[in-house]
């Protein structure tokens, strides 16, 4: 739920961004209701899944040679209870093998750590770009198109380069670790929404406010600290949330791409390799990855609680 709101940064809202569309409702009841409907929504997906699996032909629904609805074999669509049940069975028959969910949780935590570093780096870089572009319009014109374009480069194409270049970095006793390559790639996905959101945020103060600072003969830094940074919070929060989700996606893909051990990306391909003989096992890390993304985006949303004074502009 939190990250649906997170995508708001992608909204280059035409017109007034803080224009309240509806009368606010009592907050507590509303979020309680939202949770309730959310649970109903998930339940509906489960029911549709099972109903479809029950009713539809094995080979799916094919129209004019194109399969428009999926196959219903156990290979393609395992029963929900089988997928969930599998989580609580051991990973392998080997003695002492931990339950599947434990391995997934561990992998998810590892990835979360890496993604967090990537997110931090992405935030710093994104913010630096935003500051640069806010300060000089020429920088904005010159850089922004490339920042947008950067996201059309398939990151898989340069994952090996990042790993290779990274592995050559050695400064004193400090050596580049493989997980840092993954974090770097994660930061590449995370920085984009943050740069764009922060730029919009830093540019968001009304003219009346910038002119006020001008009449106070306040220079660049006081204006930044007293005005632009606080004003950017409502834009920054969703951007950071989106950045967190992106960082997780980037970390997972980069783990797969660079072959890093220990994270959920590794589990995704390992268990996907076993999907023929044990279809339900492959779904475990998928659920794990989704949960991971939701947790990452959700925890950033918590930031908003601490910054709620800076979000008053949203309601006013």
């Amino acid at each position: 739920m939190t990250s649906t709101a997170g995508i708001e940064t992608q909204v280059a809202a035409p017109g007034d961004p803080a224009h309240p569309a509806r009368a606010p409702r009592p907050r507590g009841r509303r979020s309680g209701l939202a949770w309730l409907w959310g649970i109903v929504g998930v339940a509906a997906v489960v029911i549709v899944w099972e109903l479809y699996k029950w009713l539809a032909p094995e080979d799916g629904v094919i129209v004019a040679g194109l399969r428009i609805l999926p196959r219903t074999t156990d290979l393609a669509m395992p029963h929900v209870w089988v997928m969930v049940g599998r989580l609580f069975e051991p990973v392998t028959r080997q003695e002492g093998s931990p339950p599947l969910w434990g391995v997934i949780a561990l992998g998810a935590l590892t990835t979360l750590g890496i993604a967090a570093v990537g997110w931090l780096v992405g935030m710093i870089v994104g913010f630096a770009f935003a500051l640069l572009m806010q300060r000089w319009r020429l920088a904005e014109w010159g850089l922004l198109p490339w920042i947008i374009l950067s996201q059309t480069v398939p990151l898989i194409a340069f994952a090996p380069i990042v790993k290779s270049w990274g592995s050559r970095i050695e400064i004193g006793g400090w050596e580049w670790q493989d997980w840092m390559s993954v974090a770097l790639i994660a930061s590449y996905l995370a920085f984009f929404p943050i740069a764009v959101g922060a730029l919009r945020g830093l540019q968001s103060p009304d003219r009346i406010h910038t002119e006020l600072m001008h009449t106070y003969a306040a220079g660049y830094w006081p204006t930044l600290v007293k005005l632009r940074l606080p004003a950017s919070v409502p834009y920054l929060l969703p951007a950071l949330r989106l950045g967190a989700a992106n960082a997780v996606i980037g970390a997972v893909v980069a783990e797969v791409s660079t072959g890093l051990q220990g994270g959920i990306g590794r589990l995704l391909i390992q268990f996907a390799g076993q999907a023929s003989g044990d279809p339900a096992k492959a779904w475990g890390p998928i659920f794990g990855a989704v949960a991971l993304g939701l947790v990452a985006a959700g925890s950033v949303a918590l930031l908003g609680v601490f910054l709620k004074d800076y979000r008053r502009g949203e309601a006013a």
Partner: protein
Amino acid sequence: MTTVRHAPRARWSPAAERRLRVIAPLVVGLLGLALWQFLVTVVGVSDYLLPSPAAILQQLVEFWPAILQATIITGTNALLGLVVGTLLAILLAALAARWRAVDGMSAPIVASLAVVPIVALAPVLNSMFGADSQFGRQAIAALAAFVPVFVNTLRGLRQTRPVHRDLMHVYAASGPQTFRLVTLPTAAPYLMTGIRIASSLAVISALVAEYFGGPRGGLGTFIATSAATSAYARAWAYVAAAIALGLIFYLATALLEWLVLRRIPTGGAR
């Protein structure tokens, strides 16, 4: 207290501004290319791993027909995905805007879709829809496009101004009339923004999905294949085509957005 006159940003005449807006990114791009070529030829970063722009260009020319073919395949997948994803998103957003229950129910699903990595989805979709068709990639592109379009459209559908709603009520207008005359035009700019964001996502998703199974022939396949035998110049030639494809999608949707915004001015009237 300081002598910095920061408030009025440097002012250029509108014409100069328009020119600079084009020139600035070009200069940055050329500088980047020059730096790249410099790293490879002068500093001697191994040409093996990071081919020079010149080498990439040469491969681009040599494999032009194949690259074009691959671009068309990936582009078609992305386009179909974008169109289908957009239509589904509009439909669901309309339902969610109409019924709170649909909104609440779709929230966790949309949120999940927004955070699920392609590498997790691709094998599953290949199993469900068959690895022998492009459908899996199109489905992934559609899912990738779905999220931003849905979120933006839903937002847009809620921007209907109370005064317009009152007006339609006063005219005793029917639900469909209100939707056609007020709700939809109000949401259109938001929808367009969503589509613009979705466009590059659709391209990149369709491409990355090719890494994880399905028919060969697209850009993703050949980036991977070329890289696997260290034909990096060729790989980057395909990457360049991918970037161009993403750019085309982005520009096309930006143009669409501009056209719609021109027909539907949002500012001014209160």
